[in-house]
């Protein structure tokens, strides 16, 4: 069987001593965590290792000896190291020795109770201890719990190093009975800024929690729950986005420490996302409020609304004539056309009534962009919805009329053929009608049939306009969703510290020499950007199409009102 020794590259220049680490017998591999230097008392070493084992739950033990002879080969030292094998009995006892500055080390094992006495091959794998300790291995997405028993060998190694953090706290420069060498020996690393931030975060979190409880108390008060207001809040996307952001703030400001990697990344992602959002919002605000752009916007808004209304009037005049060469029923045409024209007239007067206040309203509404770019986009979407309210009304009128007509036609068509819809049995049954019923039914059927093209044309035109507005709103919401759900912290981490997010490992074969063990370098293979986004995506109240294409077409044909975007909180009707 091949013996694999995972040796930390930071210990390559350590003085002679004994090796401590974990022996994984199922894989016949030894993960070396540190080197203990002379002089030491074996009893104290065993005691210390027992303590470490209790705290970290990793079975750390003495695995072998390390001989780094900088001058000539010292015979006595190597014999002494062999004798140590009897004190710390470990099966097999690994002996690694390095001569001078040579890259090629000799590695051998001592087996007392060996079943097969032949020389087994040894593979020496170097690994970067700090990177492996900080890294987080991402298993492939489809496995999750299934392969727990069959856990990959690599995750065992990563796990061992990550959980032994307590071992790395003591160093050979510390005063104490045990002198260790590991990755911290090159110099203990810490960052003042990170420590200061950690200290400052506790009171900041408490302040934020207090403010949030106030705000949510106001939001939940009875005043805002009366019927017209609650209906309004549910329809405006700004309020949903606000609620969503409040929820995010609550997640960040909670006092509990993150339990595992996923929660930590989630908190960090939300924090960075909020920060970037607010920064972009403030940038937008500073651009808007410079050079009186708000004034310009307000000045162009009324003419644009007027222009839209005029275009609609022209459209209706066209429909009242002979649109596309089709011949309409004159009377119905005139009625419908005048009805809609009157509505447009009302709308124009309403807009003109509002015109002196528009600039002020826009100015105050623009201030809310400091809450974030997503908020500004939601407000834009709501403004579009409000400005095109008349198109929505026309669509509803046209759809209802058309729907009534279609139902009437289908029911009278059944009468025409002598059948009836049985509500009890939910099926079509034959029925014998009286003569006068048949007569009136056929008459009505004919009237409805010949009036169908007119109504259908109005319905078609207004549905297309409504779909246009819906598509524009949908695009804005898609953009808001993108900003909400993109895990920016994870992406920046993948860019700057790619070893933290590991998809696996890669091995590089180093220079070999005959007679010496195989030397490999184990490096961390980082996760691809696509997998980072997929794993750490933030959940949103996303809007996605409610209906498939087939049911959408069916609804359009029958004249049922369509609300193409479904929000996560909506109940399925």
């Amino acid at each position, binding site marked *: *069987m091949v013996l694999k020794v995972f040796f930390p590259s930071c210990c390559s220049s350590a003085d002679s001593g004994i090796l401590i680490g974990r022996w994984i017998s*199922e894989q*016949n591999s030894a993960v070396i965590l540190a080197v203990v230097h002379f002089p030491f008392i074996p009893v104290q070493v065993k005691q210390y290792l027992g303590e470490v084992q209790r705290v970290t739950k990793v079975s750390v033990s003495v695995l072998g000896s390390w001989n780094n002879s900088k001058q000539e080969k010292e015979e006595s030292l190597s014999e002494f190291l062999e004798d140590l094998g009897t004190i710390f009995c470990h099966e097999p006892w690994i002996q690694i020795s390095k001569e001078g500055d040579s890259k090629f080390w000799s590695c051998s094992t001592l087996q007392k109770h060996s079943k097969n006495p032949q020389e087994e091959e040894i*593979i020496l*794998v170097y690994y970067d201890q700090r990177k492996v300790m900080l890294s987080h291995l991402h298993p492939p997405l489809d496995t999750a719990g299934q392969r727990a028993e069959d856990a990959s*060998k690599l995750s065992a190694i990563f796990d061992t190093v990550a959980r032994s953090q307590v071992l790395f706290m003591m160093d050979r420069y510390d005063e104490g009975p045990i002198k260790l060498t590991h990755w911290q020996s090159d110099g203990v690393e810490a960052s003042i800024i990170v420590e200061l931030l950690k200290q400052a975060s506790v009171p900041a979190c408490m302040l934020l929690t207090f403010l949030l409880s106030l705000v949510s108390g106001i939001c939940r008060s009875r005043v805002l729950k009366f019927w017209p207001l609650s209906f309004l809040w549910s329809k405006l996307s700004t309020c949903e986005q606000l609620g969503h952001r409040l929820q995010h703030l609550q997640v960040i400001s909670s006092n509990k420490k993150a339990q595992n990697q996923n929660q930590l990344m989630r908190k960090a992602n939300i924090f960075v996302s909020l920060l970037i959002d607010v920064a972009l919002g403030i940038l937008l605000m500073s651009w808007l409020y410079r050079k009186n752009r708000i004034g310009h916007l307000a000045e162009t808004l009324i003419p644009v609304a007027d222009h839209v209304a005029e275009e609609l009037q022209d459209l209706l005049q066209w429909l009242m004539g002979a649109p596309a060469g089709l011949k309409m029923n004159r009377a119905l045409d005139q009625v419908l056309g005048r009805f809609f024209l009157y509505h447009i007239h009302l709308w124009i007067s309403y807009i003109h009534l509002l015109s002196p206040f528009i600039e002020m309203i826009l100015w105050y509404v623009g201030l809310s962009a400091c809450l974030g770019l997503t908020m500004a986009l939601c407000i834009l979407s709501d403004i579009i919805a409000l400005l095109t309210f008349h198109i929505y009304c026309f669509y509803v009128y046209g759809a209802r009329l058309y729907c009534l007509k279609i139902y009437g036609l289908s029911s009278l068509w059944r009468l025409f053929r002598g059948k009836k819809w049985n509500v009890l049995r939910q099926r079509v049954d034959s029925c014998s009608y009286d003569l006068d019923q048949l007569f009136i039914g056929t008459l009505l059927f004919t009237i409805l049939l010949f009036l169908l093209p007119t109504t259908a044309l109005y319905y078609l035109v207004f549905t297309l306009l409504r779909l246009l507005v819906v598509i524009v709103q949908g695009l804005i919401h898609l953009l808001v969703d993108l900003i909400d759900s993109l895990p920016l912290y994870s992406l920046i981490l993948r860019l700057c510290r790619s070893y933290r997010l590991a998809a696996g490992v890669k091995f590089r074969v180093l220079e070999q020499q005959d007679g010496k063990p195989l030397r*490999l370098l184990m490096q961390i*293979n980082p996760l691809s950007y696509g997998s980072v986004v997929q794993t750490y995506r933030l959940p949103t109240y996303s809007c996605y199409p409610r209906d498939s294409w087939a049911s959408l077409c069916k609804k359009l044909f029958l004249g049922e009102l369509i609300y193409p975007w479904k929000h996560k909180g909506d109940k399925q009707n």
Partner: protein
Amino acid sequence: MAEERRFLSASGVPIALRRRQHSASCRELAVRGPRLQLRSLSAATSAVWLAAYGLFALSENSMVLSAAIFITLIGLIIYLHFVKIDQESLLVIGSLGIQVTSSYASGKESTTFIEMGQVKDVVINEAIHMQKVIYYLCILLQDPEDPQGVSEVVPLFQSSKPRLDCLIEVYKSCQEILEQRKTAPQSS
């Protein structure tokens, strides 16, 4: 100990197979395709610039020329970094696993490491590719629930597509190492 032999790919392009034995249980097999030729590069660039100059002569808009330069540069960078694979290699380390590496012309390397516990076998399969039937080497991954089943098939040397003679050499080298794990005493 390295040796190199020349073969042909499925489309007739000359490729080279290099075998290195690092130790008794570690072998590296690398298939190298032809490098990017200066001829084809100049031909593509000249074609794009001729077309751009023709458009410029028609439309008198100098933006066309700068757009053509921009497109050529971006296209070249994308081709070298994402499309052109120079070398595909297979590193088989008995008792650790199999590592598959693709090196692109820009120097980028994309690596996948498959642990030995997941590898069921390495076989040569046939596939219908366009109008031809070609042979390809693939790694069969073990299904954790079903010991006889195969959960995934990982095809190797997809860009260089060596022919059967080259594949047989690679197959023999891999099988020598894979057999060692069967003869070794089973670990619990």
